[in-house]
Protein backbone atom coordinates (compact mmCIF):
# COMPACT_ATOMS: atom_id res chain seq x y z
CA UNK A 1 0.00 0.00 0.00
CA UNK A 2 1.49 3.33 -1.08
CA UNK A 3 2.16 5.95 1.60
CA UNK A 4 0.72 9.34 0.66
CA UNK A 5 2.07 11.31 3.62
CA UNK A 6 4.61 10.29 6.25
CA UNK A 7 5.28 12.36 9.37
CA UNK A 8 8.56 11.51 11.07
CA UNK A 9 9.33 12.76 14.60
CA UNK A 10 7.12 15.78 14.05
CA UNK A 11 7.45 18.49 16.68
CA UNK A 12 5.56 21.74 16.94
CA UNK A 13 5.08 24.13 19.85
CA UNK A 14 2.84 27.12 20.48
CA UNK A 15 5.01 29.20 22.81
CA UNK A 16 6.02 26.89 25.64
CA UNK A 17 3.24 24.36 24.89
CA UNK A 18 4.34 21.39 22.84
CA UNK A 19 1.41 20.51 20.56
CA UNK A 20 3.12 17.79 18.52
CA UNK A 21 5.83 15.82 20.28
CA UNK A 22 7.92 13.39 18.18
CA UNK A 23 4.79 12.30 16.37
CA UNK A 24 5.05 9.57 13.73
CA UNK A 25 2.20 8.75 11.39
CA UNK A 26 1.62 7.37 7.92
CA UNK A 27 -1.34 8.15 5.67
CA UNK A 28 -1.77 5.37 3.14
CA UNK A 29 -3.52 5.13 -0.18
CA UNK A 30 -6.94 3.48 -0.25
CA UNK A 31 -7.53 3.35 3.49
CA UNK A 32 -9.70 5.15 6.01
CA UNK A 33 -7.63 6.44 8.91
CA UNK A 34 -9.38 7.67 12.07
CA UNK A 35 -7.48 10.06 14.32
CA UNK A 36 -8.91 9.99 17.82
CA UNK A 37 -7.96 11.56 21.10
CA UNK A 38 -9.21 14.06 23.69
CA UNK A 39 -9.75 17.76 23.02
CA UNK A 40 -6.43 19.57 22.83
CA UNK A 41 -4.57 16.38 21.88
CA UNK A 42 -3.22 18.02 18.72
CA UNK A 43 -5.58 16.54 16.11
CA UNK A 44 -6.45 19.78 14.30
CA UNK A 45 -2.84 20.96 14.44
CA UNK A 46 -1.81 17.61 12.97
CA UNK A 47 -4.25 18.17 10.09
CA UNK A 48 -2.82 21.65 9.48
CA UNK A 49 0.67 20.11 9.35
CA UNK A 50 -0.47 17.38 6.96
CA UNK A 51 -1.94 20.08 4.72
CA UNK A 52 1.20 22.19 4.87
CA UNK A 53 -0.61 25.05 6.63
CA UNK A 54 1.74 24.87 9.60
CA UNK A 55 5.46 24.25 9.58
CA UNK A 56 7.15 21.88 11.98
CA UNK A 57 9.76 23.05 14.47
CA UNK A 58 11.52 19.69 14.06
CA UNK A 59 10.95 16.50 12.11
CA UNK A 60 9.83 15.92 8.55
CA UNK A 61 6.71 15.51 6.45
CA UNK A 62 7.25 13.39 3.35
CA UNK A 63 4.49 13.78 0.78
CA UNK A 64 4.39 11.44 -2.20
CA UNK A 65 1.31 13.06 -3.73
CA UNK A 66 2.42 14.65 -7.00
CA UNK A 67 0.18 17.66 -6.81
CA UNK A 68 -0.77 18.37 -3.20
CA UNK A 69 -3.23 21.14 -4.03
CA UNK A 70 -5.16 19.10 -6.56
CA UNK A 71 -4.91 15.81 -4.69
CA UNK A 72 -6.37 16.79 -1.31
CA UNK A 73 -9.90 17.79 -0.36
CA UNK A 74 -10.53 19.21 3.12
CA UNK A 75 -13.47 19.80 5.39
CA UNK A 76 -12.55 21.90 8.41
CA UNK A 77 -14.42 21.81 11.73
CA UNK A 78 -16.33 25.01 10.94
CA UNK A 79 -18.18 24.52 7.63
CA UNK A 80 -16.52 26.66 4.99
CA UNK A 81 -18.79 28.40 2.50
CA UNK A 82 -19.82 31.81 1.20
CA UNK A 83 -23.06 33.14 2.65
CA UNK A 84 -25.34 34.64 0.03
CA UNK A 85 -24.65 31.76 -2.34
CA UNK A 86 -26.58 28.52 -2.60
CA UNK A 87 -24.98 25.08 -2.34
CA UNK A 88 -24.69 24.89 -6.15
CA UNK A 89 -22.90 28.24 -6.48
CA UNK A 90 -20.62 27.50 -3.54
CA UNK A 91 -19.46 24.24 -5.11
CA UNK A 92 -19.02 26.04 -8.44
CA UNK A 93 -16.97 28.82 -6.79
CA UNK A 94 -14.62 26.44 -4.99
CA UNK A 95 -14.23 24.38 -8.18
CA UNK A 96 -13.18 27.60 -9.93
CA UNK A 97 -10.61 28.51 -7.26
CA UNK A 98 -9.17 25.04 -7.76
CA UNK A 99 -8.80 25.76 -11.46
CA UNK A 100 -11.66 23.51 -12.49
CA UNK A 101 -14.49 24.74 -14.71
CA UNK A 102 -17.05 22.32 -13.27
CA UNK A 103 -19.97 21.49 -15.55
CA UNK A 104 -23.58 21.57 -14.33
CA UNK A 105 -23.61 17.74 -14.42
CA UNK A 106 -20.45 17.48 -12.29
CA UNK A 107 -21.79 19.90 -9.68
CA UNK A 108 -25.17 18.16 -9.56
CA UNK A 109 -23.44 14.79 -9.23
CA UNK A 110 -21.42 15.96 -6.22
CA UNK A 111 -24.49 17.55 -4.64
CA UNK A 112 -26.39 14.29 -5.13
CA UNK A 113 -23.48 12.33 -3.66
CA UNK A 114 -23.76 14.56 -0.58
CA UNK A 115 -27.59 14.44 -0.55
CA UNK A 116 -27.85 18.17 -1.21
CA UNK A 117 -29.73 18.18 -4.51
CA UNK A 118 -32.85 19.69 -2.86
CA UNK A 119 -30.79 22.45 -1.22
CA UNK A 120 -28.90 23.44 -4.36
CA UNK A 121 -30.44 26.94 -4.53
CA UNK A 122 -30.86 27.56 -0.80
CA UNK A 123 -28.52 30.15 0.72
CA UNK A 124 -25.78 28.12 2.44
CA UNK A 125 -26.24 30.26 5.54
CA UNK A 126 -29.80 28.94 5.90
CA UNK A 127 -28.89 25.26 5.64
CA UNK A 128 -29.05 23.03 8.73
CA UNK A 129 -25.83 22.10 10.55
CA UNK A 130 -25.77 18.67 8.88
CA UNK A 131 -26.38 20.17 5.44
CA UNK A 132 -23.59 22.73 5.97
CA UNK A 133 -21.16 19.92 6.89
CA UNK A 134 -22.26 17.98 3.79
CA UNK A 135 -21.81 21.12 1.70
CA UNK A 136 -18.26 21.48 3.06
CA UNK A 137 -17.63 17.86 2.01
CA UNK A 138 -19.16 18.52 -1.43
CA UNK A 139 -16.80 21.50 -1.79
CA UNK A 140 -13.89 19.24 -0.81
CA UNK A 141 -14.91 16.67 -3.41
CA UNK A 142 -15.60 18.80 -6.49
CA UNK A 143 -12.01 18.74 -7.78
CA UNK A 144 -11.93 14.92 -7.38
CA UNK A 145 -9.20 14.59 -4.72
CA UNK A 146 -7.38 11.34 -4.02
CA UNK A 147 -7.22 12.08 -0.30
CA UNK A 148 -10.11 13.51 1.70
CA UNK A 149 -9.41 15.02 5.12
CA UNK A 150 -12.40 15.52 7.41
CA UNK A 151 -11.98 17.32 10.74
CA UNK A 152 -14.78 16.16 13.05
CA UNK A 153 -17.33 15.70 10.26
CA UNK A 154 -20.14 14.66 12.59
CA UNK A 155 -19.46 16.92 15.59
CA UNK A 156 -22.46 18.84 16.98
CA UNK A 157 -24.94 17.08 14.70
CA UNK A 158 -28.13 15.24 15.58
CA UNK A 159 -28.17 11.42 15.24
CA UNK A 160 -29.90 11.46 11.89
CA UNK A 161 -27.44 13.96 10.36
CA UNK A 162 -24.54 11.97 11.86
CA UNK A 163 -25.85 8.77 10.32
CA UNK A 164 -26.18 10.45 6.90
CA UNK A 165 -22.59 11.68 7.01
CA UNK A 166 -21.28 8.28 8.16
CA UNK A 167 -23.02 6.61 5.19
CA UNK A 168 -21.54 9.21 2.91
CA UNK A 169 -17.99 8.65 4.18
CA UNK A 170 -18.46 4.88 3.82
CA UNK A 171 -19.56 5.22 0.21
CA UNK A 172 -16.70 7.63 -0.57
CA UNK A 173 -14.21 5.13 0.86
CA UNK A 174 -15.81 2.36 -1.21
CA UNK A 175 -15.33 4.49 -4.31
CA UNK A 176 -11.56 4.39 -3.67
CA UNK A 177 -10.92 7.79 -2.08
CA UNK A 178 -8.50 7.67 0.87
CA UNK A 179 -10.04 9.30 3.92
CA UNK A 180 -8.53 10.72 7.10
CA UNK A 181 -11.02 11.85 9.72
CA UNK A 182 -10.91 12.98 13.34
CA UNK A 183 -13.69 12.02 15.69
CA UNK A 184 -14.89 11.65 19.27
CA UNK A 185 -17.61 9.19 18.24
CA UNK A 186 -16.29 5.66 18.77
CA UNK A 187 -19.23 4.00 16.96
CA UNK A 188 -18.33 6.05 13.89
CA UNK A 189 -14.66 5.07 14.21
CA UNK A 190 -15.58 1.37 14.57
CA UNK A 191 -17.83 1.49 11.53
CA UNK A 192 -15.63 3.46 9.17
CA UNK A 193 -11.94 3.17 10.02
CA UNK A 194 -9.50 0.67 8.54
CA UNK A 195 -6.83 1.98 10.89
CA UNK A 196 -6.99 4.04 14.06
CA UNK A 197 -4.42 6.39 15.57
CA UNK A 198 -4.93 7.49 19.16
CA UNK A 199 -3.25 10.82 19.86
CA UNK A 200 -2.65 12.40 23.21
CA UNK A 201 -0.31 15.19 24.30
CA UNK A 202 0.90 15.52 20.72
CA UNK A 203 2.03 11.89 20.33
CA UNK A 204 0.57 8.79 18.73
CA UNK A 205 -0.03 6.59 21.80
CA UNK A 206 -1.51 3.65 19.89
CA UNK A 207 -2.01 2.80 16.25
CA UNK A 208 -3.38 -0.12 14.25
CA UNK A 209 -6.55 -1.78 13.06
CA UNK A 210 -9.41 -2.08 15.53
CA UNK A 211 -8.68 -5.77 16.12
CA UNK A 212 -4.96 -5.13 16.61
CA UNK A 213 -5.61 -2.35 19.12
CA UNK A 214 -8.19 -4.33 21.09
CA UNK A 215 -5.96 -7.42 21.18
CA UNK A 216 -2.85 -5.54 22.23
CA UNK A 217 -4.64 -3.83 25.11
CA UNK A 218 -6.65 -6.86 26.24
CA UNK A 219 -10.08 -5.33 25.78
CA UNK A 220 -13.00 -6.01 23.47
CA UNK A 221 -14.51 -2.55 23.23
CA UNK A 222 -13.19 0.66 21.64
CA UNK A 223 -14.84 2.90 24.25
CA UNK A 224 -13.08 0.93 26.97
CA UNK A 225 -9.80 1.12 25.06
CA UNK A 226 -10.24 4.90 24.70
CA UNK A 227 -10.77 5.29 28.45
CA UNK A 228 -7.73 3.08 29.09
CA UNK A 229 -5.55 5.14 26.75
CA UNK A 230 -6.70 8.38 28.39
CA UNK A 231 -5.75 6.99 31.78
CA UNK A 232 -2.34 5.81 30.51
CA UNK A 233 -1.70 9.16 28.85
CA UNK A 234 -2.44 11.00 32.07
CA UNK A 235 -0.09 8.76 34.01
CA UNK A 236 2.69 9.43 31.48
CA UNK A 237 2.18 13.17 31.72
Amino acid sequence: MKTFIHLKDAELSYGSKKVLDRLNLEIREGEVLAIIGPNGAGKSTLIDVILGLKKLDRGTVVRSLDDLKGAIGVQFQTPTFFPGLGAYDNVKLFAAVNGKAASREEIEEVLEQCHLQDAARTDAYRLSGGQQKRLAIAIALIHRPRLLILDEPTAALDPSARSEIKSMIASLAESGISVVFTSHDMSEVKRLADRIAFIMNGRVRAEGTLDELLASHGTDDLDELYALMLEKGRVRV
Partner: protein
Amino acid sequence: MIRSVMALMAKSIYKDAYMLVWSILLPLGLFIGLGMYHDGASYRADLLVASMLLSLVMGAINTSGFWTMTQHRRGVFKLLKLSRLPISQFILCSILARLLMFVGIAALLLLAGFLLFDMRISAVGLMLVLALLIIGSVCFTSIGYAIASRARDEGMMNMMSTVVSFPMIFLSTAFYSLDQAPRWIQFLSKLNPFEYAVRIGRSAMAGAVDVPSLAILVAFAVVCAGIAIRTFRVE
Protein backbone atom coordinates in the same frame (compact mmCIF):
# COMPACT_ATOMS: atom_id res chain seq x y z
CA MET B 1 -11.61 30.94 -13.93
CA ILE B 2 -11.09 34.47 -12.55
CA ARG B 3 -14.25 35.70 -14.27
CA SER B 4 -16.27 32.91 -12.73
CA VAL B 5 -14.80 33.58 -9.26
CA MET B 6 -15.50 37.31 -9.59
CA ALA B 7 -19.09 36.83 -10.76
CA LEU B 8 -19.88 34.47 -7.87
CA MET B 9 -18.13 36.71 -5.36
CA ALA B 10 -20.20 39.65 -6.59
CA LYS B 11 -23.36 37.57 -6.17
CA SER B 12 -22.34 36.73 -2.60
CA ILE B 13 -21.37 40.31 -1.71
CA TYR B 14 -24.48 41.93 -3.18
CA LYS B 15 -26.74 39.88 -0.93
CA ASP B 16 -25.04 41.26 2.16
CA ALA B 17 -27.56 43.14 4.31
CA TYR B 18 -24.84 45.45 5.73
CA MET B 19 -23.97 46.49 2.19
CA LEU B 20 -27.61 47.21 1.38
CA VAL B 21 -28.04 49.47 4.42
CA TRP B 22 -24.66 51.22 4.71
CA SER B 23 -23.66 51.54 1.07
CA ILE B 24 -26.96 51.82 -0.79
CA LEU B 25 -29.93 52.94 1.34
CA LEU B 26 -28.08 55.35 3.67
CA PRO B 27 -26.19 57.34 0.98
CA LEU B 28 -29.16 57.40 -1.39
CA GLY B 29 -31.56 58.47 1.38
CA LEU B 30 -29.11 61.09 2.61
CA PHE B 31 -28.59 62.59 -0.83
CA ILE B 32 -32.26 62.70 -1.81
CA GLY B 33 -33.45 63.75 1.67
CA LEU B 34 -30.95 66.57 2.25
CA GLY B 35 -30.93 67.53 -1.42
CA MET B 36 -34.66 68.26 -1.29
CA TYR B 37 -34.26 70.63 1.67
CA HIS B 38 -31.29 72.58 0.36
CA ASP B 39 -31.67 73.93 -3.13
CA GLY B 40 -28.21 75.42 -3.72
CA ALA B 41 -26.55 73.83 -6.77
CA SER B 42 -23.13 73.97 -5.13
CA TYR B 43 -24.42 72.35 -1.92
CA ARG B 44 -26.10 69.57 -3.87
CA ALA B 45 -22.91 68.87 -5.84
CA ASP B 46 -20.97 68.65 -2.57
CA LEU B 47 -23.68 66.44 -1.07
CA LEU B 48 -23.58 64.13 -4.08
CA VAL B 49 -19.81 63.66 -3.65
CA ALA B 50 -20.20 63.15 0.11
CA SER B 51 -22.95 60.53 -0.39
CA MET B 52 -20.91 58.71 -3.04
CA LEU B 53 -17.86 58.59 -0.78
CA LEU B 54 -19.90 57.67 2.29
CA SER B 55 -21.12 54.63 0.34
CA LEU B 56 -17.56 53.82 -0.66
CA VAL B 57 -15.99 54.17 2.78
CA MET B 58 -18.74 52.29 4.62
CA GLY B 59 -18.77 49.51 2.03
CA ALA B 60 -15.01 49.24 1.81
CA ILE B 61 -14.10 49.51 5.50
CA ASN B 62 -17.09 48.30 7.51
CA THR B 63 -18.88 45.84 5.24
CA SER B 64 -15.77 44.49 3.59
CA GLY B 65 -14.08 44.19 7.00
CA PHE B 66 -16.97 42.19 8.44
CA TRP B 67 -17.08 40.00 5.34
CA THR B 68 -13.35 39.31 5.53
CA MET B 69 -13.45 38.52 9.23
CA THR B 70 -16.36 36.11 8.71
CA GLN B 71 -14.39 34.34 5.98
CA HIS B 72 -11.38 34.14 8.31
CA ARG B 73 -13.47 32.54 11.02
CA ARG B 74 -15.03 30.08 8.59
CA GLY B 75 -11.60 28.98 7.41
CA VAL B 76 -12.22 30.18 3.86
CA PHE B 77 -8.71 31.61 3.56
CA LYS B 78 -7.18 28.37 4.87
CA LEU B 79 -9.09 26.51 2.19
CA LEU B 80 -8.03 29.05 -0.41
CA LYS B 81 -4.40 28.59 0.58
CA LEU B 82 -4.82 24.94 -0.37
CA SER B 83 -6.38 25.85 -3.71
CA ARG B 84 -4.69 26.78 -6.97
CA LEU B 85 -5.88 30.40 -6.87
CA PRO B 86 -3.40 32.66 -5.06
CA ILE B 87 -5.05 34.47 -2.13
CA SER B 88 -3.87 37.80 -3.57
CA GLN B 89 -5.93 37.11 -6.71
CA PHE B 90 -8.92 36.14 -4.62
CA ILE B 91 -8.67 39.41 -2.67
CA LEU B 92 -8.32 41.31 -5.94
CA CYS B 93 -11.50 39.60 -7.19
CA SER B 94 -13.35 40.68 -4.04
CA ILE B 95 -12.11 44.28 -4.41
CA LEU B 96 -13.16 44.35 -8.07
CA ALA B 97 -16.56 42.86 -7.26
CA ARG B 98 -17.10 45.59 -4.68
CA LEU B 99 -15.78 48.24 -7.06
CA LEU B 100 -18.45 47.26 -9.60
CA MET B 101 -21.03 47.82 -6.91
CA PHE B 102 -19.60 51.21 -5.90
CA VAL B 103 -19.66 52.26 -9.55
CA GLY B 104 -23.29 51.12 -9.77
CA ILE B 105 -24.24 53.12 -6.65
CA ALA B 106 -22.38 56.19 -7.94
CA ALA B 107 -24.30 55.88 -11.22
CA LEU B 108 -27.55 55.63 -9.24
CA LEU B 109 -26.68 58.77 -7.25
CA LEU B 110 -25.72 60.66 -10.40
CA LEU B 111 -28.97 59.58 -12.03
CA ALA B 112 -30.95 60.70 -8.96
CA GLY B 113 -29.11 64.04 -9.11
CA PHE B 114 -29.97 64.42 -12.78
CA LEU B 115 -33.63 63.41 -12.48
CA LEU B 116 -34.48 65.16 -9.21
CA PHE B 117 -32.19 68.18 -9.15
CA ASP B 118 -31.18 68.64 -12.79
CA MET B 119 -27.50 68.12 -11.94
CA ARG B 120 -25.00 67.55 -14.79
CA ILE B 121 -21.51 66.16 -14.96
CA SER B 122 -19.10 66.29 -17.91
CA ALA B 123 -17.53 63.23 -19.56
CA VAL B 124 -14.18 64.24 -18.03
CA GLY B 125 -15.87 64.52 -14.65
CA LEU B 126 -17.32 61.02 -15.05
CA MET B 127 -13.89 59.59 -15.85
CA LEU B 128 -12.44 61.33 -12.80
CA VAL B 129 -15.22 59.95 -10.58
CA LEU B 130 -14.42 56.47 -11.91
CA ALA B 131 -10.71 56.97 -11.16
CA LEU B 132 -11.62 58.19 -7.67
CA LEU B 133 -13.74 55.09 -7.05
CA ILE B 134 -10.94 52.79 -8.20
CA ILE B 135 -8.23 54.41 -6.07
CA GLY B 136 -10.62 54.88 -3.14
CA SER B 137 -11.69 51.21 -3.33
CA VAL B 138 -8.11 50.03 -3.09
CA CYS B 139 -7.30 52.45 -0.25
CA PHE B 140 -10.38 51.93 1.93
CA THR B 141 -10.81 48.19 1.26
CA SER B 142 -7.17 47.72 2.28
CA ILE B 143 -7.98 49.50 5.56
CA GLY B 144 -10.96 47.12 5.98
CA TYR B 145 -8.73 44.08 5.39
CA ALA B 146 -6.08 45.35 7.80
CA ILE B 147 -8.70 45.86 10.54
CA ALA B 148 -10.25 42.42 9.86
CA SER B 149 -6.84 40.81 10.30
CA ARG B 150 -6.61 42.28 13.80
CA ALA B 151 -10.20 41.80 15.00
CA ARG B 152 -10.86 38.67 17.04
CA ASP B 153 -14.67 38.75 16.86
CA GLU B 154 -17.65 40.70 15.53
CA GLY B 155 -17.75 43.05 18.53
CA MET B 156 -14.11 44.02 18.11
CA MET B 157 -14.55 44.37 14.35
CA ASN B 158 -17.54 46.66 14.87
CA MET B 159 -15.62 48.79 17.38
CA MET B 160 -12.45 49.01 15.29
CA SER B 161 -14.17 49.78 11.98
CA THR B 162 -16.32 52.45 13.64
CA VAL B 163 -13.30 54.00 15.35
CA VAL B 164 -11.58 54.27 11.96
CA SER B 165 -14.39 55.12 9.54
CA PHE B 166 -16.45 57.64 11.55
CA PRO B 167 -13.55 59.97 12.44
CA MET B 168 -12.51 59.81 8.77
CA ILE B 169 -15.92 61.18 7.79
CA PHE B 170 -16.14 63.71 10.64
CA LEU B 171 -12.56 64.96 10.15
CA SER B 172 -13.29 65.87 6.55
CA THR B 173 -15.15 68.59 4.74
CA ALA B 174 -17.62 66.09 3.26
CA PHE B 175 -20.68 67.43 5.10
CA TYR B 176 -19.46 70.74 6.58
CA SER B 177 -16.60 73.20 6.38
CA LEU B 178 -13.67 72.88 8.77
CA ASP B 179 -12.66 76.54 8.36
CA GLN B 180 -13.85 77.41 11.87
CA ALA B 181 -12.62 74.17 13.43
CA PRO B 182 -9.68 74.14 15.90
CA ARG B 183 -6.25 73.94 14.30
CA TRP B 184 -5.59 70.42 15.52
CA ILE B 185 -8.73 69.21 13.74
CA GLN B 186 -7.64 70.97 10.57
CA PHE B 187 -4.24 69.31 10.96
CA LEU B 188 -5.80 65.86 11.42
CA SER B 189 -7.94 66.39 8.34
CA LYS B 190 -4.71 66.76 6.35
CA LEU B 191 -3.72 63.23 7.42
CA ASN B 192 -7.11 61.86 6.40
CA PRO B 193 -7.34 60.02 3.03
CA PHE B 194 -11.11 60.55 3.00
CA GLU B 195 -10.57 64.34 2.90
CA TYR B 196 -8.46 63.99 -0.26
CA ALA B 197 -11.14 61.77 -1.81
CA VAL B 198 -13.69 64.53 -1.07
CA ARG B 199 -11.48 67.15 -2.74
CA ILE B 200 -10.95 64.97 -5.83
CA GLY B 201 -14.70 64.29 -6.04
CA ARG B 202 -15.60 67.98 -5.85
CA SER B 203 -13.10 68.90 -8.55
CA ALA B 204 -14.44 66.06 -10.69
CA MET B 205 -17.98 67.42 -10.41
CA ALA B 206 -16.59 70.68 -11.83
CA GLY B 207 -14.76 68.75 -14.58
CA ALA B 208 -11.30 69.49 -13.16
CA VAL B 209 -8.47 67.39 -11.79
CA ASP B 210 -7.09 68.08 -8.31
CA VAL B 211 -3.64 66.68 -9.06
CA PRO B 212 -2.07 67.11 -5.57
CA SER B 213 -5.03 65.41 -3.85
CA LEU B 214 -5.01 62.64 -6.45
CA ALA B 215 -1.31 62.01 -5.85
CA ILE B 216 -1.80 61.97 -2.06
CA LEU B 217 -4.74 59.53 -2.31
CA VAL B 218 -2.68 57.25 -4.58
CA ALA B 219 0.11 57.33 -1.99
CA PHE B 220 -2.38 56.48 0.78
CA ALA B 221 -3.72 53.61 -1.37
CA VAL B 222 -0.22 52.19 -1.89
CA VAL B 223 0.64 52.44 1.83
CA CYS B 224 -2.71 50.97 2.95
CA ALA B 225 -2.48 48.11 0.43
CA GLY B 226 1.05 47.39 1.69
CA ILE B 227 -0.14 47.30 5.30
CA ALA B 228 -3.11 45.05 4.35
CA ILE B 229 -0.79 42.60 2.56
CA ARG B 230 1.73 42.55 5.42
CA THR B 231 -0.86 42.08 8.14
CA PHE B 232 -3.06 39.62 6.23
CA ARG B 233 -3.32 36.26 7.97
CA VAL B 234 -4.82 33.04 6.70
CA GLU B 235 -6.24 32.05 10.13
